[in-house]
Protein backbone atom coordinates (compact mmCIF):
# COMPACT_ATOMS: atom_id res chain seq x y z
CA UNK A 1 0.00 0.00 0.00
CA UNK A 2 1.64 3.23 -1.18
CA UNK A 3 1.97 6.29 0.99
CA UNK A 4 2.77 9.77 -0.24
CA UNK A 5 3.21 13.21 1.25
CA UNK A 6 2.46 16.69 -0.01
CA UNK A 7 3.99 19.66 1.78
CA UNK A 8 2.35 22.97 1.00
CA UNK A 9 4.42 26.16 1.23
CA UNK A 10 2.81 29.57 1.28
CA UNK A 11 -0.89 28.63 1.39
CA UNK A 12 -2.99 31.43 2.80
CA UNK A 13 -6.53 30.26 2.02
CA UNK A 14 -9.08 29.57 4.72
CA UNK A 15 -8.45 25.89 5.22
CA UNK A 16 -4.77 26.61 5.71
CA UNK A 17 -5.70 29.54 7.92
CA UNK A 18 -2.93 28.88 10.33
CA UNK A 19 -0.44 29.12 7.49
CA UNK A 20 -1.16 32.79 6.85
CA UNK A 21 1.86 34.74 8.03
CA UNK A 22 1.40 37.63 10.40
CA UNK A 23 1.92 41.15 9.12
CA UNK A 24 5.09 41.83 11.08
CA UNK A 25 6.51 38.56 9.86
CA UNK A 26 5.79 39.51 6.26
CA UNK A 27 7.64 42.75 6.77
CA UNK A 28 10.62 40.91 8.21
CA UNK A 29 10.86 38.00 5.81
CA UNK A 30 10.38 37.67 2.10
CA UNK A 31 9.71 33.96 2.44
CA UNK A 32 7.60 31.74 4.70
CA UNK A 33 9.05 30.87 8.09
CA UNK A 34 9.14 27.22 7.03
CA UNK A 35 11.87 28.09 4.50
CA UNK A 36 14.00 30.05 6.95
CA UNK A 37 17.02 28.32 8.44
CA UNK A 38 16.54 27.61 12.12
CA UNK A 39 19.61 26.16 13.83
CA UNK A 40 21.13 25.40 10.45
CA UNK A 41 18.18 23.82 8.67
CA UNK A 42 14.73 24.94 7.59
CA UNK A 43 11.61 23.42 9.11
CA UNK A 44 10.63 22.40 5.59
CA UNK A 45 13.82 20.35 5.29
CA UNK A 46 13.24 18.83 8.72
CA UNK A 47 9.71 17.82 7.75
CA UNK A 48 10.87 16.36 4.42
CA UNK A 49 13.46 14.32 6.27
CA UNK A 50 10.83 13.04 8.67
CA UNK A 51 8.73 11.82 5.74
CA UNK A 52 11.76 10.28 4.06
CA UNK A 53 12.71 8.50 7.29
CA UNK A 54 9.11 7.21 7.58
CA UNK A 55 9.65 5.52 4.18
CA UNK A 56 7.02 7.60 2.45
CA UNK A 57 7.17 6.60 -1.20
CA UNK A 58 6.83 10.04 -2.80
CA UNK A 59 7.15 13.50 -1.32
CA UNK A 60 6.01 16.56 -3.23
CA UNK A 61 6.56 20.14 -2.16
CA UNK A 62 3.97 22.51 -3.61
CA UNK A 63 5.11 26.10 -3.43
CA UNK A 64 3.08 29.22 -4.08
CA UNK A 65 4.78 31.09 -6.91
CA UNK A 66 5.63 34.13 -4.80
CA UNK A 67 7.61 31.96 -2.39
CA UNK A 68 9.60 29.98 -4.94
CA UNK A 69 12.94 31.45 -3.92
CA UNK A 70 12.58 29.85 -0.52
CA UNK A 71 12.68 26.35 -1.94
CA UNK A 72 15.38 26.81 -4.59
CA UNK A 73 18.02 25.19 -2.35
CA UNK A 74 15.87 22.06 -2.08
CA UNK A 75 15.94 21.28 -5.77
CA UNK A 76 17.91 18.11 -6.39
CA UNK A 77 18.76 17.68 -2.73
CA UNK A 78 16.51 14.69 -2.08
CA UNK A 79 16.05 11.68 -4.34
CA UNK A 80 12.32 11.06 -3.99
CA UNK A 81 11.26 14.62 -3.40
CA UNK A 82 9.87 16.78 -6.16
CA UNK A 83 9.40 20.52 -5.87
CA UNK A 84 6.64 22.20 -7.87
CA UNK A 85 6.13 25.95 -8.06
CA UNK A 86 2.45 26.57 -8.73
CA UNK A 87 0.08 29.50 -9.11
CA UNK A 88 -2.98 27.87 -7.56
CA UNK A 89 -2.07 25.65 -4.65
CA UNK A 90 -5.46 23.97 -4.31
CA UNK A 91 -5.81 22.90 -7.93
CA UNK A 92 -2.19 21.73 -7.81
CA UNK A 93 -2.97 19.78 -4.64
CA UNK A 94 -5.91 18.13 -6.36
CA UNK A 95 -3.77 17.27 -9.39
CA UNK A 96 -1.06 15.86 -7.18
CA UNK A 97 -3.48 13.61 -5.32
CA UNK A 98 -4.82 12.37 -8.67
CA UNK A 99 -1.28 11.71 -9.80
CA UNK A 100 -0.57 9.75 -6.62
CA UNK A 101 -3.74 7.76 -7.16
CA UNK A 102 -2.66 6.88 -10.71
CA UNK A 103 0.69 5.74 -9.30
CA UNK A 104 -1.13 3.40 -6.89
CA UNK A 105 -0.35 5.58 -3.90
CA UNK A 106 -3.54 5.16 -1.93
CA UNK A 107 -2.95 7.54 0.97
CA UNK A 108 -1.13 10.78 1.29
CA UNK A 109 -0.21 13.20 4.03
CA UNK A 110 -1.14 16.79 3.25
CA UNK A 111 0.69 19.19 5.49
CA UNK A 112 1.43 22.87 5.65
CA UNK A 113 5.19 23.31 5.74
CA UNK A 114 4.75 25.81 8.56
CA UNK A 115 3.71 23.07 10.95
CA UNK A 116 6.59 21.52 12.82
CA UNK A 117 5.46 18.37 14.57
CA UNK A 118 7.25 15.41 16.01
CA UNK A 119 4.28 13.08 15.97
CA UNK A 120 4.67 9.48 14.83
CA UNK A 121 3.62 9.85 11.20
CA UNK A 122 3.09 6.16 10.66
CA UNK A 123 0.87 5.93 13.72
CA UNK A 124 -1.21 8.76 12.28
CA UNK A 125 -1.43 6.86 9.00
CA UNK A 126 -2.50 3.61 10.69
CA UNK A 127 -5.10 5.51 12.69
CA UNK A 128 -6.47 7.00 9.47
CA UNK A 129 -6.57 3.65 7.74
CA UNK A 130 -8.40 1.97 10.60
CA UNK A 131 -10.86 4.85 10.92
CA UNK A 132 -11.82 4.34 7.24
CA UNK A 133 -12.38 8.04 6.70
CA UNK A 134 -11.67 9.97 3.52
CA UNK A 135 -9.51 12.36 5.48
CA UNK A 136 -8.11 12.50 9.01
CA UNK A 137 -6.91 15.74 10.50
CA UNK A 138 -4.27 16.12 13.18
CA UNK A 139 -4.97 18.32 16.15
CA UNK A 140 -3.26 19.18 19.37
CA UNK A 141 -4.34 20.86 22.59
CA UNK A 142 -4.40 24.24 20.83
CA UNK A 143 -6.77 23.05 18.10
CA UNK A 144 -6.65 21.66 14.58
CA UNK A 145 -3.37 21.55 12.71
CA UNK A 146 -2.74 21.86 9.01
CA UNK A 147 -1.90 18.18 8.83
CA UNK A 148 -4.09 15.55 7.22
CA UNK A 149 -3.96 12.04 5.85
CA UNK A 150 -6.28 11.63 2.87
CA UNK A 151 -7.40 8.85 0.54
CA UNK A 152 -6.00 9.86 -2.81
CA UNK A 153 -8.64 8.07 -4.88
CA UNK A 154 -11.54 9.62 -3.04
CA UNK A 155 -9.92 13.03 -2.84
CA UNK A 156 -9.70 13.32 -6.60
CA UNK A 157 -13.42 12.78 -6.97
CA UNK A 158 -14.42 15.93 -5.15
CA UNK A 159 -13.35 19.33 -3.97
CA UNK A 160 -10.10 18.93 -2.02
CA UNK A 161 -10.58 22.07 0.02
CA UNK A 162 -14.02 20.88 1.13
CA UNK A 163 -12.65 17.44 1.88
CA UNK A 164 -9.94 18.83 4.14
CA UNK A 165 -12.43 21.09 5.87
CA UNK A 166 -14.84 18.20 6.43
CA UNK A 167 -12.32 15.99 8.18
CA UNK A 168 -12.58 17.84 11.46
CA UNK A 169 -16.38 18.18 11.28
CA UNK A 170 -16.74 14.47 10.58
CA UNK A 171 -14.83 13.78 13.77
CA UNK A 172 -11.95 12.20 11.93
CA UNK A 173 -9.23 13.68 14.05
CA UNK A 174 -6.00 12.38 15.46
CA UNK A 175 -4.79 13.90 18.70
CA UNK A 176 -1.10 14.76 18.75
CA UNK A 177 0.57 14.66 22.13
CA UNK A 178 4.09 15.17 20.88
CA UNK A 179 5.83 18.48 20.29
CA UNK A 180 4.10 20.87 17.88
CA UNK A 181 5.06 24.34 16.74
CA UNK A 182 2.82 26.10 14.22
CA UNK A 183 5.46 28.67 13.23
CA UNK A 184 3.01 31.46 12.62
CA UNK A 185 4.62 34.29 14.46
CA UNK A 186 8.17 35.40 15.14
CA UNK A 187 7.66 34.31 18.75
CA UNK A 188 7.10 30.77 17.46
CA UNK A 189 10.51 30.83 15.82
CA UNK A 190 12.11 31.95 19.06
CA UNK A 191 10.22 29.26 20.95
CA UNK A 192 11.41 26.58 18.54
CA UNK A 193 15.00 27.78 18.93
CA UNK A 194 14.87 27.76 22.72
CA UNK A 195 13.03 24.42 22.82
CA UNK A 196 15.60 22.85 20.51
CA UNK A 197 18.58 24.29 22.36
CA UNK A 198 17.24 23.20 25.71
CA UNK A 199 16.21 19.73 24.51
CA UNK A 200 12.47 20.24 24.93
CA UNK A 201 11.95 18.96 21.39
CA UNK A 202 13.76 16.46 19.21
CA UNK A 203 15.17 19.06 16.81
CA UNK A 204 18.92 19.31 17.14
CA UNK A 205 21.12 22.09 15.81
CA UNK A 206 23.43 21.34 12.90
CA UNK A 207 27.14 21.25 13.57
CA UNK A 208 28.90 20.06 16.69
CA UNK A 209 28.16 20.55 20.35
CA UNK A 210 31.56 21.81 21.43
CA UNK A 211 30.52 22.33 25.06
CA UNK A 212 27.24 21.47 26.72
CA UNK A 213 24.63 23.63 25.04
CA UNK A 214 27.01 25.37 22.63
CA UNK A 215 26.66 24.34 19.02
CA UNK A 216 29.10 25.49 16.38
CA UNK A 217 28.58 24.69 12.72
CA UNK A 218 31.17 24.11 9.99
CA UNK A 219 33.43 27.02 9.11
CA UNK A 220 32.28 29.31 11.91
CA UNK A 221 34.98 31.67 13.16
CA UNK A 222 34.88 32.85 16.73
CA UNK A 223 37.33 35.40 18.04
CA UNK A 224 39.28 34.63 21.19
CA UNK A 225 37.79 37.67 22.86
CA UNK A 226 34.20 36.65 22.17
CA UNK A 227 32.10 35.04 24.88
CA UNK A 228 29.41 32.51 24.16
CA UNK A 229 27.12 31.51 26.98
CA UNK A 230 25.13 28.27 26.66
CA UNK A 231 22.75 27.52 25.20
CA UNK A 232 23.61 29.12 21.87
CA UNK A 233 24.16 28.22 18.22
CA UNK A 234 26.64 29.67 15.75
CA UNK A 235 25.84 28.79 12.15
CA UNK A 236 27.95 27.71 9.20
CA UNK A 237 30.52 30.26 8.05
CA UNK A 238 29.50 32.89 10.59
CA UNK A 239 32.00 35.23 12.17
CA UNK A 240 31.83 36.29 15.77
CA UNK A 241 34.18 39.18 16.40
CA UNK A 242 36.09 40.39 19.43
CA UNK A 243 34.31 41.33 22.67
CA UNK A 244 30.92 40.08 21.53
CA UNK A 245 28.55 38.26 23.83
CA UNK A 246 26.15 35.64 22.49
CA UNK A 247 23.84 34.48 25.24
CA UNK A 248 20.46 33.10 26.39
CA UNK A 249 19.19 30.83 23.62
CA UNK A 250 20.49 32.99 20.79
CA UNK A 251 21.09 31.57 17.34
CA UNK A 252 23.33 33.10 14.74
CA UNK A 253 22.49 31.43 11.45
CA UNK A 254 24.83 30.80 8.51
CA UNK A 255 27.08 33.44 6.96
CA UNK A 256 26.38 36.09 9.55
CA UNK A 257 28.81 38.47 11.15
CA UNK A 258 28.45 39.85 14.64
CA UNK A 259 30.83 42.76 14.90
CA UNK A 260 32.97 43.87 17.84
CA UNK A 261 31.43 44.56 21.23
CA UNK A 262 27.88 43.61 20.29
CA UNK A 263 25.59 41.69 22.64
CA UNK A 264 23.08 39.20 21.26
CA UNK A 265 20.67 38.06 23.94
CA UNK A 266 17.60 35.85 23.49
CA UNK A 267 17.60 36.70 19.78
CA UNK A 268 17.76 35.11 16.36
CA UNK A 269 20.08 36.51 13.74
CA UNK A 270 18.84 35.00 10.50
CA UNK A 271 21.16 33.92 7.70
CA UNK A 272 23.30 36.47 5.84
CA UNK A 273 23.01 39.26 8.37
CA UNK A 274 25.76 41.61 9.44
CA UNK A 275 25.25 43.12 12.88
CA UNK A 276 27.42 46.20 13.43
CA UNK A 277 29.65 47.14 16.32
CA UNK A 278 28.65 47.91 19.88
CA UNK A 279 24.97 47.11 19.61
CA UNK A 280 22.61 45.35 21.93
CA UNK A 281 20.18 42.98 20.27
CA UNK A 282 17.73 41.75 22.90
CA UNK A 283 14.52 39.72 22.43
CA UNK A 284 14.67 40.33 18.72
CA UNK A 285 14.96 38.87 15.25
CA UNK A 286 17.28 40.36 12.66
CA UNK A 287 17.17 39.54 8.98
CA UNK A 288 19.47 41.59 6.76
CA UNK A 289 18.62 45.20 7.48
CA UNK A 290 15.23 44.33 8.98
CA UNK A 291 14.99 44.27 12.74
CA UNK A 292 12.04 42.98 14.70
CA UNK A 293 11.89 43.84 18.37
CA UNK A 294 9.70 41.30 20.13
CA UNK A 295 9.66 43.45 23.24
CA UNK A 296 8.39 46.56 21.46
CA UNK A 297 6.48 44.57 18.81
CA UNK A 298 7.81 46.63 15.95
CA UNK A 299 9.66 45.93 12.71
CA UNK A 300 12.29 48.48 11.75
CA UNK A 301 14.13 48.86 8.50
CA UNK A 302 17.68 49.90 9.35
CA UNK A 303 18.93 52.24 6.68
CA UNK A 304 22.46 52.58 8.08
CA UNK A 305 24.48 49.65 6.69
CA UNK A 306 27.01 50.15 9.48
CA UNK A 307 24.37 49.13 11.99
CA UNK A 308 22.76 46.20 10.22
CA UNK A 309 22.80 44.92 6.69
CA UNK A 310 22.39 41.88 4.53
CA UNK A 311 25.50 40.04 3.43
CA UNK A 312 23.78 38.43 0.46
CA UNK A 313 25.38 39.05 -2.94
CA UNK A 314 22.07 40.66 -3.99
CA UNK A 315 21.27 43.37 -1.46
CA UNK A 316 18.06 42.69 0.39
CA UNK A 317 16.49 45.80 1.80
CA UNK A 318 12.76 45.91 2.39
CA UNK A 319 11.92 47.16 -1.06
CA UNK A 320 14.78 45.38 -2.72
CA UNK A 321 13.90 42.26 -0.77
CA UNK A 322 10.37 42.17 -2.04
CA UNK A 323 11.34 42.91 -5.60
CA UNK A 324 14.14 40.39 -5.38
CA UNK A 325 11.58 37.91 -4.15
CA UNK A 326 9.20 38.62 -6.99
CA UNK A 327 11.93 38.35 -9.55
CA UNK A 328 13.23 35.22 -7.95
CA UNK A 329 11.14 33.04 -10.23
CA UNK A 330 13.68 33.78 -12.90
CA UNK A 331 16.50 31.40 -12.04
CA UNK A 332 19.28 33.80 -13.03
CA UNK A 333 18.28 36.32 -10.38
CA UNK A 334 18.28 33.87 -7.53
CA UNK A 335 21.37 34.10 -5.45
CA UNK A 336 21.97 30.68 -3.94
CA UNK A 337 21.47 31.34 -0.26
CA UNK A 338 22.97 28.03 0.71
CA UNK A 339 26.43 27.65 -0.80
CA UNK A 340 27.91 24.21 -0.48
CA UNK A 341 30.11 24.08 2.58
CA UNK A 342 33.75 24.03 1.67
CA UNK A 343 35.89 21.28 3.10
CA UNK A 344 37.38 24.01 5.26
CA UNK A 345 38.15 23.65 8.92
CA UNK A 346 35.19 22.59 10.98
CA UNK A 347 35.27 25.70 13.08
CA UNK A 348 37.92 27.99 14.43
CA UNK A 349 38.03 28.96 17.98
CA UNK A 350 40.36 30.58 20.41
CA UNK A 351 41.08 28.98 23.73
CA UNK A 352 39.02 29.51 26.86
CA UNK A 353 36.40 31.72 25.38
CA UNK A 354 33.30 29.60 25.68
CA UNK A 355 31.52 29.63 28.96
CA UNK A 356 29.35 26.55 29.23
Amino acid at each position, binding site marked *: MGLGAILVVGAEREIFSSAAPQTDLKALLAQPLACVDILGRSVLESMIERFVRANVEAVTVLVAAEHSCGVEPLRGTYEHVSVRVVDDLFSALSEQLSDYSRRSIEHSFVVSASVYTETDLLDLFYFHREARQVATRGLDRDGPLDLWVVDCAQAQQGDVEGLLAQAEKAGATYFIREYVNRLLQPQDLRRLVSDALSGRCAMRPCGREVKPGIWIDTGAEIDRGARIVAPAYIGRGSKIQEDTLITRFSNIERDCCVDCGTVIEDSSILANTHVGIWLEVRHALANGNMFLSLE*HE*VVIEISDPGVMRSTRPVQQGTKDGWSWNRKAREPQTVADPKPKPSPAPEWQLGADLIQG
Partner: protein
Amino acid sequence: MYTTGPVVVMELPEKLQHAEGKAFLVELRPLLEVDRPRIVLDCSQMENIDSAGIEILLHCMEEAMKRDGDLKLAALSPASAAILELMRVDRLFEVFATAEEAAQSFHALGLEEPQGLPWYSAPHGLANLKAAS
Protein backbone atom coordinates in the same frame (compact mmCIF):
# COMPACT_ATOMS: atom_id res chain seq x y z
CA MET B 1 8.22 74.72 21.40
CA TYR B 2 6.58 75.68 24.66
CA THR B 3 7.68 76.04 28.25
CA THR B 4 6.22 74.90 31.52
CA GLY B 5 7.90 77.05 34.14
CA PRO B 6 11.61 76.62 33.94
CA VAL B 7 11.35 73.35 32.00
CA VAL B 8 11.62 73.63 28.24
CA VAL B 9 9.62 71.12 26.20
CA MET B 10 10.68 70.79 22.61
CA GLU B 11 9.19 68.61 19.92
CA LEU B 12 11.60 66.55 17.92
CA PRO B 13 11.12 66.59 14.15
CA GLU B 14 9.58 63.67 12.28
CA LYS B 15 13.03 62.66 11.07
CA LEU B 16 16.09 62.97 13.23
CA GLN B 17 18.91 62.20 10.89
CA HIS B 18 22.06 64.09 9.96
CA ALA B 19 20.55 67.13 8.20
CA GLU B 20 17.43 67.47 10.35
CA GLY B 21 19.50 66.89 13.46
CA LYS B 22 21.84 69.76 12.62
CA ALA B 23 18.94 72.15 12.13
CA PHE B 24 17.40 70.94 15.37
CA LEU B 25 20.64 71.43 17.24
CA VAL B 26 20.93 75.03 16.01
CA GLU B 27 17.46 75.66 17.44
CA LEU B 28 18.18 73.91 20.72
CA ARG B 29 21.66 75.28 21.38
CA PRO B 30 20.61 78.59 23.01
CA LEU B 31 18.41 76.63 25.43
CA LEU B 32 21.32 74.40 26.37
CA GLU B 33 23.62 77.31 27.06
CA VAL B 34 21.79 78.53 30.15
CA ASP B 35 22.51 77.58 33.73
CA ARG B 36 20.90 74.25 34.66
CA PRO B 37 19.00 73.67 31.45
CA ARG B 38 15.98 71.43 32.00
CA ILE B 39 14.85 70.11 28.71
CA VAL B 40 12.21 67.61 27.67
CA LEU B 41 12.33 66.33 24.13
CA ASP B 42 8.87 65.31 23.01
CA CYS B 43 9.39 62.42 20.59
CA SER B 44 5.73 61.90 19.71
CA GLN B 45 6.22 63.18 16.16
CA MET B 46 9.53 61.41 15.59
CA GLU B 47 9.21 58.46 13.24
CA ASN B 48 12.73 58.07 12.01
CA ILE B 49 16.02 58.25 13.85
CA ASP B 50 19.44 57.03 12.84
CA SER B 51 22.87 56.91 14.46
CA ALA B 52 23.50 60.59 13.63
CA GLY B 53 20.25 61.47 15.39
CA ILE B 54 21.24 59.46 18.43
CA GLU B 55 24.60 61.20 18.49
CA ILE B 56 22.77 64.52 18.57
CA LEU B 57 20.62 63.38 21.48
CA LEU B 58 23.74 62.30 23.34
CA HIS B 59 25.46 65.59 22.56
CA CYS B 60 22.47 67.54 23.92
CA MET B 61 22.38 65.44 27.07
CA GLU B 62 26.10 65.96 27.58
CA GLU B 63 25.73 69.72 27.16
CA ALA B 64 22.82 69.82 29.62
CA MET B 65 24.73 67.77 32.18
CA LYS B 66 27.82 69.96 31.85
CA ARG B 67 25.68 72.82 33.09
CA ASP B 68 24.16 70.78 35.90
CA GLY B 69 20.91 70.32 34.01
CA ASP B 70 19.27 67.32 32.41
CA LEU B 71 17.55 66.22 29.26
CA LYS B 72 14.63 63.80 29.30
CA LEU B 73 12.69 62.06 26.59
CA ALA B 74 8.94 61.73 26.33
CA ALA B 75 6.40 59.88 24.18
CA LEU B 76 8.87 57.60 22.45
CA SER B 77 7.32 55.42 19.76
CA PRO B 78 8.00 51.67 19.98
CA ALA B 79 10.29 51.96 16.96
CA SER B 80 12.35 54.76 18.51
CA ALA B 81 12.50 52.88 21.81
CA ALA B 82 13.73 49.78 19.99
CA ILE B 83 16.39 51.80 18.17
CA LEU B 84 17.62 53.41 21.38
CA GLU B 85 17.83 49.97 22.95
CA LEU B 86 19.65 48.54 19.94
CA MET B 87 22.16 51.39 20.05
CA ARG B 88 22.59 50.89 23.80
CA VAL B 89 21.59 54.39 24.78
CA ASP B 90 18.15 53.66 26.23
CA ARG B 91 19.48 53.47 29.77
CA LEU B 92 21.21 56.85 29.50
CA PHE B 93 17.94 58.77 29.24
CA GLU B 94 14.99 59.06 31.52
CA VAL B 95 11.98 58.25 29.38
CA PHE B 96 8.39 59.26 30.18
CA ALA B 97 5.06 58.46 28.60
CA THR B 98 4.15 62.13 28.10
CA ALA B 99 5.93 65.46 27.99
CA GLU B 100 3.89 66.64 30.98
CA GLU B 101 5.10 63.74 33.09
CA ALA B 102 8.66 64.44 32.04
CA ALA B 103 8.32 68.13 32.93
CA GLN B 104 6.78 67.31 36.29
CA SER B 105 9.64 64.96 37.07
CA PHE B 106 11.98 67.98 37.21
CA HIS B 107 9.71 69.61 39.79
CA ALA B 108 9.51 66.42 41.79
CA LEU B 109 13.25 66.64 42.28
CA GLY B 110 12.92 70.11 43.75
CA LEU B 111 14.62 71.87 40.89
CA GLU B 112 11.97 74.55 40.34
CA GLU B 113 14.32 77.48 40.41
CA PRO B 114 17.94 77.54 39.34
CA GLN B 115 19.86 78.18 42.54
CA GLY B 116 23.06 79.38 40.97
CA LEU B 117 24.94 77.06 43.29
CA PRO B 118 27.80 74.86 42.24
CA TRP B 119 26.95 71.30 41.30
CA TYR B 120 28.26 69.83 44.56
CA SER B 121 25.65 71.75 46.51
CA ALA B 122 22.92 69.38 45.34
CA PRO B 123 22.60 67.75 48.80
CA HIS B 124 21.76 71.17 50.22
CA GLY B 125 19.08 71.52 47.54
CA LEU B 126 17.61 68.20 48.52
CA ALA B 127 17.75 69.11 52.20
CA ASN B 128 15.88 72.32 51.44
CA LEU B 129 13.29 70.34 49.60
CA LYS B 130 12.79 67.99 52.53
CA ALA B 131 12.49 70.94 54.87
CA ALA B 132 9.97 72.62 52.58
CA SER B 133 7.84 69.51 52.35
